């Protein structure tokens, strides 16, 4: 990862200047794309892994792999899907390697910065939401976040998570119900 790179590594590699990094995307396009997507990808990684520090590391790795993939994309949506697919795979790998540390909790400073019309209510809701999300499986968290935070279609979610599009709807339904129950919403039978 980038953090492992020392200044001597940097100067050594700078001496290799003239070799092409081989990215399909030029700097201006990348920077504009990064500005549009980085915060969203970070939020996604933080939610899926439940670890902010890990999300910081995985964010840089995600963009690096995206650049290295040297794939051409038809449109912005396609490009974003690739990015989220890479992020999902990295989060999954990190979980497999048991890199995920203790789940993060919101500090009082974080809560105050949340910026809501009623900060206390918002903070309580967010804390409840964070705890509820941590009780879900990583795949369920990813699914719900992509569907409702990123507005991804079922096909896009299935693509990012490596699922069959046909199986996504029931899985999403189940994850949503589970989160609703964890947030204290009434069981289904009592509603109708």
């Amino acid at each position, binding site marked *: 990862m*980038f953090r492992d*790179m020392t200044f001597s*590594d*940097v100067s*050594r*590699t*700078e001496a*290799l*200047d003239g*070799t092409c*990094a*081989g*990215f399909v995307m030029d*700097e201006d396009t*990348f*920077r504009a794309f*990064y500005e549009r997507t*980085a915060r*969203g990808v*970070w*939020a996604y990684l*933080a*939610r899926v892994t439940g670890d902010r520090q890990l999300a910081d590391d995985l*964010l*840089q790795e995600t*963009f*690096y792999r995206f*650049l*290295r993939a040297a794939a051409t994309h038809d449109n912005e949506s396609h490009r974003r899907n690739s990015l989220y697919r890479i992020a999902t795979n990295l989060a999954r790998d990190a979980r497999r390697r048991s890199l995920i540390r203790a789940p993060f909790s919101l500090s009082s400073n*974080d809560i105050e*910065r*949340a*910026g*809501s019309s009623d900060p206390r209510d*918002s903070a309580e*809701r*967010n804390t409840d*939401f*964070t705890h509820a*999300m941590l009780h879900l499986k990583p795949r369920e968290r990813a699914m*719900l*976040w992509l569907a*409702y*935070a990123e*507005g991804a279609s079922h096909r896009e979610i299935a693509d990012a998570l490596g699922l069959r599009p046909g199986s996504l*709807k*029931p899985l999403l*339904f*189940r994850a*949503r*119900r*589970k989160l*609703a*129950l964890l*947030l204290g*919403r009434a*069981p*289904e039978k009592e*509603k*109708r």
Partner: protein
Amino acid sequence: MNPLKRELKDLEFKDCEFEPDALAAALQSRFPEWVDAGLRAHVAGCAICSDVVAIASAVDEAREEMRGRATVPDSGRVWWLAQVRARREAAEAAGRPITAAQLIAFACAVGLLGACFGATSTRFQSALGWIASSAAGVHAKAVPPAAMGVLVQHGAFILAIAAVFFLISTAVYLALGRD
């Protein structure tokens, strides 16, 4: 069994035709004020759509809050570091076949030297002959006489070939297996 597990165990997948409308209204922050009364009434009575609206609103709120807290590195820095890393990896990848070729050449040279030594050194050959005759004494019945003759006559050559194969495979493993 806890209530959550019990509820999920009995859960049956259900679909609602108004789910996309309810979701769109929630994601666009139109719900409940800026939607028509029909949809509002439907959401109030439909377990699926009310879950969709509640969860989508909660996730959207959390998203805004998290995006506000996110401190991502500068795009220019990310680009620069990616360039540096890509060049470093390219240089490493370019150096790898040279290392492999060098190791294979070294292994071949060692094997060749071993073969020459085995073919010319009388002391080595006499030692080999002694080993072969000892082995023949022990396993006289197990090893056919023809095979024993081949072993005694070409033992050094066979050993040299085996050494070359061993060294080449070790060299390839060391050169490529490290990655």
